């Protein structure tokens, strides 16, 4: 899936570059405005739909109990604090960077949503930060699992319910499955709300 997303992003960037520099065949504001908004709303609808139809997801979360929810909320707090400190160190809009970090690795959501709320530059940052988070989780898992058995789950953020779940189970064992899944599920659920809530602070 990653290769299709990156190909689409690259082709979009090339199309945008040529459109902007060699004749405006497509109005930029139409793509950046209407089409962008429409695809974002469609993405959120499909995400809600997927959660709604997945009976197993709700059952797994219930089985794990409320105690397990402290893990995703700690990850969320840590990510947002890391974003705040990062924004302050780099001297860029710290609120926007907090919103970027509140994507918790979900780059297909964080990029477009942050882009709409804070501008294209932060949209690109949102995509890249969250994309790197997923890559980092997969490439460093053999090391992070030695820090703490929950460290790969903290690294993966929202991605631990799907893309990084197999590697987490491979290195963390089957007992990591429920925690990783429920953590990723909760973070995926709260990501759109935390991003928009943080944007309200700006």
């Amino acid at each position, binding site marked *: 899936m990653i290769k299709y997303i990156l190909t689409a992003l690259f082709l979009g960037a*090339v199309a*945008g570059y040529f459109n902007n520099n060699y004749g405006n065949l497509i109005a930029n504001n139409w793509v950046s405005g209407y089409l962008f908004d429409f695809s974002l709303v469609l993405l959120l609808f499909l995400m809600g739909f997927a959660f709604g139809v997945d009976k197993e997801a709700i059952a797994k979360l219930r089985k794990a109990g409320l*105690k397990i929810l*402290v893990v995703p909320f700690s990850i969320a707090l840590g990510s947002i604090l890391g974003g705040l400190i990062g924004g302050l*160190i780099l001297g860029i809009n710290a609120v926007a960077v907090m919103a970027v970090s509140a994507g918790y690795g979900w780059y297909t959501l964080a990029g477009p949503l942050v882009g709409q709320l804070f501008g294209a530059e932060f949209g*690109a940052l949102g995509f890249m930060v969250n994309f790197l988070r997923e890559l980092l989780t997969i490439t460093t898992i053999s090391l992070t699992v030695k820090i703490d058995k929950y460290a790969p789950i903290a690294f993966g953020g929202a991605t631990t319910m799907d893309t990084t779940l197999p590697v987490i189970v491979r290195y963390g064992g089957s007992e990591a499955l429920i925690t990783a899944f429920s953590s990723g599920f909760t973070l995926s659920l709260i990501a759109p709300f935390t991003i928009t809530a943080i944007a309200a602070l700006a």
Partner: protein
Amino acid sequence: MGFTIGSNNELLWSMYKIGFDSIIIVLLSVSFSVIFVKAIRRVVKLE
């Protein structure tokens, strides 16, 4: 999103800076996430 980035020349030429910023932000985000999870595990005593 790719189209929006590609049609903004200023943004396109600042991608190297965005890449550098991304590395700093992602490292801080995951580090604090791990610290918070380790701390909460001691408080709540998660297995």
